[in-house]
């Protein structure tokens, strides 16, 4: 267990020094600007192979460099291509939480998380506005990390700006969006992808951002990846996008990058009109009023479990942000072809 703030500062300073050393001598640095829920970030990758592991899932939020100062700079590198080892672990591995958060290394200035399955360290210094994502080997990044990259750094920045990352899908049309909540395997991804194929806008299938301060609840797109369980792939013969063949721990799901094939269906933001929880009860497709508490419980608890640096505050923020919205159980029915139309009609009906 870390004993003093000095140890935390030293750990971050060492990590920043190692990172600057890498980028000072690198000859193949890739730089991209992204707009994360309206916050301008500059991402710098130590080489092409590292960039290839991160960029495909966030292609839709890449923006042209504006010439204006960026709010944060995020450095991404791996040990394999740079020869730089990961910074020495500052705690025993038993002090790393399920979500990756490193005990004792998270405060108002610093945030640190380690992801064992990806051998990846994520650091954020909110005062110096520097983020670092370093990993053992970008070539073997698990598919789940490629589908939702940088989520620890993104979550720390968004939280600092009073925007919440949530474990939910979101789709919509020109009139608004719906948030799709559900436990793992409940059908969030497949519902969102059905809607995309059916012509609706797509904000994400697993992780989105929600403003907690605007008058109207707003969802922001972060990732343009999509996941389909391998056993269900045959049900999506018309899906476009670039699949990645990653055999990893993420419960045998096929991952697609959708930005290129569906670039006209990936808006930056949308006003949330309702919150849905998909269920497969068979019979006729339809919506029925759902308990506010039941859906918020699923939404909040799965978010806390998935995202580092997320605690009790997410309960309060989401309860406050979403409480005025209608909540529905969404019976997906027997005919998946009807899903997009049903969601489209629902959004149009809600004033």
């Amino acid at each position, binding site marked *: 267990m870390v004993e003093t703030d000095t140890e935390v500062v030293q750990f971050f300073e060492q990590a920043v020094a190692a990172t600057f050393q890498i980028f000072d001598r690198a000859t193949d640095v890739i730089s991209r600007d992204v707009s994360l829920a309206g916050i301008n970030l500059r991402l710098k990758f130590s080489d092409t192979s590292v960039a290839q592991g991160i960029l495909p899932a966030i292609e839709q939020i890449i923006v042209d460099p504006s010439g204006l100062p960026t709010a944060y700079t995020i450095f991404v590198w791996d040990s394999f291509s740079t020869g730089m080892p990961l910074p020495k*672990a500052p705690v025993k591995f038993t002090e790393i939480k399920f979500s990756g958060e490193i005990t004792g290394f998270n405060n108002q200035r610093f945030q640190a998380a380690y992801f064992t399955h990806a051998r990846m360290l994520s650091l954020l210094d909110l005062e110096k506005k520097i983020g670092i994502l370093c990993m053992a080997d970008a070539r073997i990044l698990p598919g789940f990390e490629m589908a939702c990259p940088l989520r620890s750094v993104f979550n720390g920045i968004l939280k600092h700006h009073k925007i919440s990352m949530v474990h939910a899908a979101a789709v919509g049309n020109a009139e608004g969006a719906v948030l799709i909540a559900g436990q*793992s395997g409940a059908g969030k991804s497949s519902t969102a992808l059905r809607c995309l194929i059916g012509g609706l806008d797509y904000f994400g299938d697993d992780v989105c951002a929600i403003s907690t301060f605007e008058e109207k609840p707003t969802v922001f797109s972060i990732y343009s990846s999509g996941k389909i369980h391998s056993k269900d792939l045959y049900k999506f013969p018309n899906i476009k996008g670039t699949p990645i063949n990653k055999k990893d721990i993420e*419960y045998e799901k096929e991952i697609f990058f959708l930005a290129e094939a569906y670039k006209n269906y990936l808006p930056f933001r949308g006003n949330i009109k309702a919150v849905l929880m998909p269920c497969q009860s068979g019979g006729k497709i339809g919506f029925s009023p759902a308990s506010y*508490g039941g859906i918020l419980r699923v939404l909040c*608890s799965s978010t806390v479990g998935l995202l580092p640096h997320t605690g009790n505050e997410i309960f309060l923020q989401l*309860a406050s942000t979403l409480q005025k919205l209608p909540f529905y159980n969404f019976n997906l029915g027997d005919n998946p072809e009807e899903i997009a139309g049903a969601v489209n009609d629902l959004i149009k009906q809600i004033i």
Partner: protein
Amino acid sequence: MERELRYAINVPNIASEVFGDEVVIVNLYSGIYYSLTGTAAQVWIRTIQNYSVDEILADFSLIYEDITTENRQQVTELIADLLDKTLITEAQNKTAIKVEFDSTLPKKPFAKPQIEVFSDMQEILLLDPVHDVDKNGWPLMKDQDKA
């Protein structure tokens, strides 16, 4: 279990919130979350305000019909379970923070308090057990080569 002992939520490892009649508790270390409703939710709400078992039962005698010896045992067992799951810990405070309720409402039947456990977040990542660390001290999973 000593009936006069007081308890508190096991922060910072545990986060909880009340949604209507339901309490949701998340263990930030394990990713497991819990749902308590009915009497179990009422036990939790008082436990984290440093109530002792006897003080919880005193409140319950005003809320529920005919609390039996078995019901008292069920409350005691729930608190033991919360302790066992490390959701609560012994409190340093020696006084409870009063939980307000309307004692004039008609009493309700007592139902056995129960905890629902959800581990779907663990299934998302399907982590192999960590069994070693690399030379820099970071955990390795069993199928990862040593650095």
